[in-house]
């Protein structure tokens, strides 16, 4: 079994990075690989609750974050500083996550064999 870390750095809907990162996580998960989803910088905006991208004709993939556990993906790590810098807290997020400092996040990242960034 391989392990892959997927880093999200972009906000949702302004680009398709978020959707593509999530698709990769689901595919890797369904092939029984160990997947870690990391959210840093504007990537933390992907996890905001109450997104309604239908208003701008975008697909609402944020609901899929709740389904990650069915793909045995339960490593969802968010950078604490990125969240705080954007006036956000854990209760603004749509899914349970692990909040880590940048250094702790980097240490966790290094435990994965493959790292992909979106």
């Amino acid at each position: 079994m391989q392990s892959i870390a997927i880093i999200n750095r972009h906000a949702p809907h302004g680009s398709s990075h978020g959707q593509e990162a999530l698709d990769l996580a689901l595919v890797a998960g369904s092939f029984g690989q160990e997947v870690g989803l990391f959210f840093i910088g504007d990537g933390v905006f992907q996890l905001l609750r109450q997104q309604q991208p239908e208003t701008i004709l975008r697909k609402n993939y944020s609901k899929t974050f709740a389904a990650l556990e069915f793909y045995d993906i339960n490593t969802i790590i968010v950078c604490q500083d990125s969240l705080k810098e954007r006036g956000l807290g854990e209760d603004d997020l749509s899914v349970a996550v692990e909040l880590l400092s940048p250094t702790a996040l980097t240490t966790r990242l290094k435990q994965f064999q493959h790292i992909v960034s979106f």
Partner: protein
Amino acid sequence: MILHLLRSSPFSALDIAQSLALMDQDDGLLLMQDAVYALQGQDQPWFEQLQQRQGIYILKEDMQARGLSHCPSFIEQVDYSKFVTLTLTFDQVVTW
């Protein structure tokens, strides 16, 4: 009078700081697409400058799409049709 259109996230682009520096009193600034994340910028250096301005607008549809709901009173929420009207009331429109 210029209407400045901002589209990228103020946390990862300098557009907002640069356009604010360029703005006159009677110019306007419209936050759309990822620039609506400026709503989350209370602790950022440029937020105070934004607060002291008139003519700051934000596109409602882009806000809702991103799950942002609380908008401070100094920013006027507009929808797409009001956005079009705005572009006609200003002399020039600058897209950042």
